């Protein structure tokens, strides 16, 4: 645990990629394999489940620090990081005999999480249930306090991060895999592939992972996903659009559909197996030839048009969708690439070639397999044709266009790839700041979560929350203004007088009965601080509702 905590500290303290890589390489080189397996697991963002409810950490921390609960909460609100607040205030000293990471995980972390798991206790009355819960919480808090007492504050901090399943330390999966490659001598691409899918952190897994000859791959294993980048400024001046194949860019779930050894597997980009959630897609795929991998997007789809992403979200949440929801929210898999055909890896073929074989599969022609489709493609001679097509995207329920170079290979982990996305110019609106809350993580302690409102008659109606888009300097300036001008507090939320106007951008508008404003916007962000505008100049709610009408299908 101590070594892993020091690794965390080293990664946290440097912004240099090379320093981060060497810190990880050193850790792998000096630690037992079982520890390295856990370290890899955590650094790649995996978590042990279930995580510990944060109320236990709050309870234990206040008790260990011998302070009242409200004081702990006030402090946490200011610090913005629960693991850190608890670790700093709790009592303890590092024991002279440090545990290994696997000891900590297996002897402290997992037992604590198991203890916190769903209680099997059955009580007759709700009062005794409540009592039982309080006793359980009590026992958990005592165990946690006891565990903390053996660690110094850095160890406690990292331990708490593991407890809450929230160990973000500014290293990407790519960087970790690169470090792994430096240490074991295998190419990063190979390791990325071997790390796909689900795995248990163990010495055996690590040994297999770094074995020089690849062991038999599991049939369910997806390929690492190729990602697209935003079209850079000036791209059209030095590239010919006729070298590219264009297709709609959808706002759904990116997924690989794998048909191997007589089974169908559906993987999300988050490397989660989606099996069972989308039975219509799996049924449709059953007719596909074996040894086939499709790359595409899952969309909620009705009336020959994608449905809003929020509907798709309702499908994702269901592990086993009911018949009702299956008819209400049908889904399709829109394939846009073919990565494996007849058991042959096609990733090093040109996109044009892969696309031709994909077309030959004639997806969607079979009436029994309507849930599988092939993404339509567009070819252009001039860039302005591309822009024209792209700007119609909303009418088709798409976000914009994808551009893929005809000769491009299916590559992963390049800084700039050969897939480009070009989104429709986002909606923009001028809104008034009405509430603010302290941010977390990098902006912990600063007011950096803002709520914005639009005019409805002479009332301001909150309609969007935005977090990003300001420079650090602007955040600091706004933070001071908020502190000096707060008129009322509702818990962590500070109300401010309607004086500041910001221009917001967002991707999409939907009707929403859950929002007071009657609308919901997707990906709202701050474009700029409109010092030049007074609150009266901000937009009206009607204005955004008109935007919504225009975005409806033709």
């Amino acid at each position: 645990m101590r070594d892993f905590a020091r690794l965390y500290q080293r990664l946290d303290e440097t912004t240099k990629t090379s320093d981060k890589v060497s810190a990880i390489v050193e850790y792998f080189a000096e630690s037992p394999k079982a520890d390295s397996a856990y370290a890899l697991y955590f650094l790649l963002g995996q978590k042990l489940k279930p995580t510990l409810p944060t109320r236990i950490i709050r309870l234990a921390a206040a008790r260990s620090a011998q302070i009242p609960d409200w004081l702990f909460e006030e402090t946490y609100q200011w610090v913005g990081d629960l693991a850190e607040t608890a670790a700093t205030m709790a009592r303890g000293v590092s024991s002279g005999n440090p545990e290994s990471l696997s000891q900590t995980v297996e002897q402290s972390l997992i037992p604590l999480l198991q203890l916190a798991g769903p209680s099997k206790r059955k009580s007759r009355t709700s009062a005794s249930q409540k009592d039982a819960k309080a006793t359980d919480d009590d026992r958990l808090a005592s165990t946690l306090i006891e565990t903390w007492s053996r660690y110094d504050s850095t160890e406690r901090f990292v331990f708490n991060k593991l407890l809450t399943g929230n160990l973000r330390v500014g290293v990407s999966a790519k960087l970790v895999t690169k470090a792994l490659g430096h240490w074991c001598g295998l190419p990063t691409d190979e390791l990325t592939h071997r790390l796909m899918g689900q795995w248990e952190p163990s010495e055996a897994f690590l040994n297999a992972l770094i074995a020089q000859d690849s062991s038999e791959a599991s049939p369910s294993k997806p390929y690492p996903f190729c990602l697209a980048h935003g079209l850079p400024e000036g791209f059209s001046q030095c590239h010919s659009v006729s070298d590219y194949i264009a297709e709609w860019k959808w706002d759904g779930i990116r997924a690989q559909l794998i048909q191997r050894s007589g089974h169908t597997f559906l993987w999300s980009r988050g490397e989660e197996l989606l099996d069972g959630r989308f039975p219509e897609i799996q049924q449709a795929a059953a007719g596909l030839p074996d040894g086939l991998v499709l790359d595409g997007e899952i969309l909620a789809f009705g009336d020959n048009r994608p449905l809003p992403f929020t509907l798709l979200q309702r499908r994702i949440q269901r592990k086993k969708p009911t018949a009702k929801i299956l008819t209400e929210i049908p889904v399709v898999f829109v394939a846009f690439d073919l990565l494996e055909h007849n058991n042959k890896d096609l990733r090093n073929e040109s996109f044009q070639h892969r696309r031709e074989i994909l077309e030959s599969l004639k997806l969607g022609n079979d009436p029994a397999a309507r849930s599988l489709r092939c993404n339509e493609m567009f070819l252009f001679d001039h860039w302005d044709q591309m822009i024209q097509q792209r700007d119609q995207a909303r009418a088709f329920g798409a976000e914009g266009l994808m551009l893929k170079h005809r000769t491009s290979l299916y590559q992963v982990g390049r800084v700039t790839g050969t897939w480009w996305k070009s989104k429709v110019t986002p909606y923009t609106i001028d809104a008034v700041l009405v509430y603010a809350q302290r941010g977390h993580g990098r902006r912990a302690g600063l007011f950096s979560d803002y709520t914005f409102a639009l005019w409805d008659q002479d009332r301001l109606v909150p309609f969007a929350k935005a977090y990003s888009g300001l420079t650090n300097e602007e955040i600091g300036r706004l933070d001071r203004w908020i502190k000096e001008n707060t008129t009322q507090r509702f818990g962590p939320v500070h109300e401010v007088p309607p004086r500041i106007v910001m221009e917001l951008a967002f991707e999409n508008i939907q009707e929403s009965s859950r929002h007071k404003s009657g609308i919901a916007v997707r990906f709202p962000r701050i474009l700029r601080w409109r010092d030049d505008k007074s609150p009266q100049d901000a937009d009206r709610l009607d204005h955004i509702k008109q935007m919504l009408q225009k975005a409806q299908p033709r």
Partner: protein
Amino acid sequence: MSYSNLLECTRRGLYCPAGDFYVDPWDRVDHAILTHAHADHARWGCKRYLAARSSEALLKVRLSNSIDLQTLDYGETLRIHNALVSLHPAGHILGSSQVRIEVDGKVALITGDYKLQPDPTCSAWEPVRCDLMVTESTFGLPVFQWPETQLVIKQLVAWWHENQKQGRTSVILAYSVGKAQRIIAEVVRLCGVEVAKDMAVHGAMLGPNRAYRNSGIEIPDLPSAASLSSDHDWSKALILGPPSSQGTGWIKRFSDPSIAMASGWMAIRGTRRRRNVDRGFVLSDHIDWPDLLRAIDACRPETVWVTHGFTDVVARYLMHQGIEAEVLQTHFSGDESEPIISEDA
């Protein structure tokens, strides 16, 4: 209990009606008592000043040589109209005082900025029995618990040596008055005075350093980094600069510098990351949470006025402990302290 004849909070600052003087006024007044030389406490333009004798050199560097300044030794009592005034060490920086005011047998104590940790560059804080205590609360949250100074200095020196091995210049950002001199004194105490040959400072620290030496604090006479020749070898150097020098041309003269900051705010990961430094050393000239409670306990006030910092939290906590407590609005920020501007932290 009313303390209206003893002390009141006015728009120009804390005022003693019985003695007709202000303590650390925010405005130009006739008669000001200053707790210490930091800019947020010592303002220029008052007719007459009273401060601790040991703060004289520093105050004249900060304000002007021509100010009308009367000084007192720590513990010496002066009658001003109907008030008895004495100054007591606050342990914050050289010459920092707590102001004790007695009127009709009632005692108020204004701590100014203070700390309980030992500091070789100033006299140690002394508890003063009082009825009304006005305390700062810059770090008045239980997450602020300072590590031992010696431990922090050891970490700092280890970081310096590590940078030397890699041929990188070590730059510490620290407040020019107080923090910088404390670091210099502690580093020299740990490593011996011969390491001073590898140390230099930002020009803004020359005046304060001189004032410290003239006041009898033994710190080496370090050169200004800007005064050394442009081809000077910085690869082994430890340089001190004010926090405001981060990102300026001054810092660009050093070869591949590793930049650290010494401040109480470095105890929190979020503020450390926001400052965008390579290392944060937790070293503060303000009082931390446990010491704040200890200090109040030792002075045994009936009422506490809380100012400068986490005023709400500290006042609420004290009230829960059965101590009468009030938040004193300063004309600075609204309700809480501001890690970005209060650089003397």
